[in-house]
């Protein structure tokens, strides 16, 4: 996926409205949406998890799944809904592939979600989905149906259904529907089970589960291959809840700052100056990390004073800082720039802001990464991604997820993902 500002291409619709997430999409995604989509889907999955742990019955779960989906995922434009659906699934796959426990949870919730969404699809849509899952069962021809009609009706009544509800049946080798055989919910004859359309749901869902399970394992393997153990040990997770103070800045820069911010700090220390773009990008970053107003003022003054003296600093530069902290003008409480904004910046001569992955030349980027201790295979991977213009995004998503949504399992993940280039979503 590429992060662009241009209008989105519509994702190819799968059969019916229900994607089965077989292959990663070739889509253009806006950066904010990356995070937002994933979070919204996570809300749906967590809602389902709650419902299950409360022991809700199937009818209640069906209703719950439908409501959750409507609340968090539905868009007026069905094409947009489909995009969000697909993108969010694949992003979460990356996030949840890392451990056995995460994979199990994700698989379980996604399967449950799929089960109830499938039940609500039209007959036509369900049939198309069955073909996609390569369940090549043909519906019983009328003559055959007539021959076994009474038995089918008897089975239906034996499991508490009213008769004459189902007219579409499939003849399936009994080996393929063990659950239905075990619970005597099908009529058996000569090795075939006569499965009602409604019962085929369980078959489809089993296939779905199987596919996602395999995909998760594969994703995890690929991820592991890209990120080396040493990277994991070297990097530490960001210090979230604690606000940074003046004395922490240099330490944190080494361990926790993104490349762009670290670069700007280096240049600031070196030149005792940063141009406007840099002051904004870096200043707001520090603010977002919890640097207090007084500390920020002191920080910038210490540096700038060494070049232009404290009086000139107070006169010409202090105002901007005050403005950033909402103490001047219309007192807007500015927030740090998003990756997209940073990436789309246009640094000129003497500027040090923007995104190094985009704006540095290859030589400089290599040098900067080397300085951080990134080398060898990982470095080449990163340079390759840069060549293909895939920018650093997942780190921010992870940060967002851990901070705002209290998912402690992902904290370690952040550390791992930091400072690696974005991974092509086709993992």
């Amino acid at each position: 996926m590429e992060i662009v500002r241009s209008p989105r291409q519509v994702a190819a619709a799968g059969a019916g409205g229900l994607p089965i997430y077989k292959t990663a999409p070739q889509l253009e995604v806006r950066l904010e949406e990356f995070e937002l989509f994933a979070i919204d889907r996570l809300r749906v999955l967590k809602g389902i998890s709650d419902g299950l742990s409360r022991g809700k019955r199937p009818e209640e779960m069906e209703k719950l799944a439908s409501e959750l989906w409507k609340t968090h995922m539905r868009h007026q434009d069905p094409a947009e809904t489909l995009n969000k659906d697909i993108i969010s699934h694949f992003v979460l796959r990356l996030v949840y592939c890392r451990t056995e426990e995460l994979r199990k949870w994700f698989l379980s919730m996604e399967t449950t979600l799929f089960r109830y969404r499938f039940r609500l699809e039209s007959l036509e849509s369900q049939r198309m989905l069955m073909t996609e899952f390569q369940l090549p069962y043909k519906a019983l021809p009328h003559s055959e149906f007539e021959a076994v009609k009474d038995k089918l009706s008897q089975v239906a009544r034996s499991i508490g259904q009213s008769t004459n509800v189902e007219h579409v049946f499939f003849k399936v080798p009994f080996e393929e529907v063990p659950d239905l055989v075990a619970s005597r919910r099908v009529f058996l004859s000569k090795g075939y089970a006569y499965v009602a359309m409604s019962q085929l749901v369980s078959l489809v869902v089993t296939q779905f589960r199987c596919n996602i399970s395999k995909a998760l394992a594969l994703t995890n393997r690929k991820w592991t291959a890209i990120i080396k153990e040493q990277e994991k040990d070297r990097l530490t997770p960001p210090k979230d809840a604690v606000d940074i103070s003046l004395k922490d800045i240099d330490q944190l820069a080494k361990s926790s700052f993104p490349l762009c911010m670290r670069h700007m700090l280096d240049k600031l220390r070196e030149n005792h100056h940063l141009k406007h773009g840099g002051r904004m990008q870096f200043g707001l970053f520090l603010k977002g990390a919890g640097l207090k107003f007084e500390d920020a003022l002191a920080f910038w003054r210490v540096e700038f004073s060494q070049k232009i003296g404290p009086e000139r600093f107070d006169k010409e530069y202090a105002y901007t800082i005050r403005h950033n902290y909402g103490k001047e003008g219309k007192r807007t409480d500015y927030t740090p720039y998003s990756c997209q904004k940073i990436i789309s910046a246009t640094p000129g001569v003497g500027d040090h802001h923007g995104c190094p992955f985009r704006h540095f030349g290859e030589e400089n980027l290599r040098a900067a990464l080397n300085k951080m201790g990134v080398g060898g295979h990982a470095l080449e991977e990163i340079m390759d991604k840069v060549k293909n213009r895939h920018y650093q995004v997942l780190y921010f998503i992870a940060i967002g997820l851990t901070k705002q949504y209290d998912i402690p399992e992902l904290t370690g993940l952040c550390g791992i993902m930091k400072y690696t280039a974005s991974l092509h979503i086709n993992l």
Partner: protein
Amino acid sequence: MVRDDEQVDSMEIDEKKQQQLEAPTAVPEGFNTDYLRVYYGKLFPYGDFFKWLCYGNDGKHPGCDQSYVGRREFSFTLENDIYLRFQSFDSATELESSIKEKCPFKIDIGPVYSVDPSKRHAYAQSGNNVFVPVERELIFDIDISDYDDVRYCCSGADVCLDCWPLMTIAIKILNTSLRDDFGFSHILWVYSGRRGVHCWVCDSRARKLSNEQRAAIADYFRVYKGGENALKKVSLAGPVLHPFLAQSYMDVLKTFFEDRLLLSQQLFSSEERCQKILDLILMKGLRRCVEEIVFSYTYPRLDMEVSKHMNHLLKAPFCIHPKTGRVCVPIDPSNCDDFDPAAVPTLSQLLGELNATGFQSDSDNSLERTSLGKSISFFRTSFLHPLLKACKEELESAYNAKLQQSKNSLNW
């Protein structure tokens, strides 16, 4: 509780036996290594047994898998309870010499593994090169002691003509369903030698079933949930019965219950027995109640664990039961009403018969001269020959299909 197999007092002695015992060639009842040695030397049907388990792979056709039979596990229980697992044989001769040499008190048949069981230690537990079961007959084990809470004539290891019909019921119901519902054809029913029956479903489709599928079939057959009180553990849900249960009830259970069990088990003969039934009636409506009572007293009770796992070992047909001396002979499901466990040949009886007609070196003749001949003959004509015919056809068509496939892939 344990029957002493050296004594004869607890077995019914009918006239024929009386005659045999009095004949000069009669052999005292018993079960021991000497007797077994003669049995294994003269009577055990190695050829038929081996042919069965080869499933046609011992032929000359290029589609035959020569490694197949060597990957089958056998286990021997020797005298003094010495237990040998993972025995395997590449030929009938090997099997024969091993049995004759070791003289096992019991022979069990296990699954066909991915590799020769005797070489299993060379293989991993996971990954690509594993030692796992790949084929195994679908098996059922029905033991009359599982019905102790609903039979009053015997208990434990005993069985008599009043309660044996419970086994007959099981055979009829399962045999019908395995054929009609599941489409299986090659089914062997065997007397377990004392108090139950075993079922071997040998279709290749059955042999290839996974554990999950086996469990599903066992669950399809399960009605009785076990536990302390059987009556409370049969719960037939739903306004009507599933066609399989309805048919079992109408064709088999109801008649047996009304005509035989009611009387022979004297279900109302004591206050305690009546109370058992009354307890049920209070809980449900009458018609469903009657059905549940009938099911409780008659419906087959399977040992689920035996059927569910591919690696479960089961006693081989034509073994001798150490406690009763009786041969584990096949039972004809279409005539199972007439099967009488007390009339099954015993080891000593067979030896007596061999004595009576004089020893000859031709082993085939030996079989025919004894009561075992009939069983072997039945085994061959009803089971083995149709099975081998089907196997041959399958092997050949599978081979031809493969040939065709490789021809197709070569075509541009």
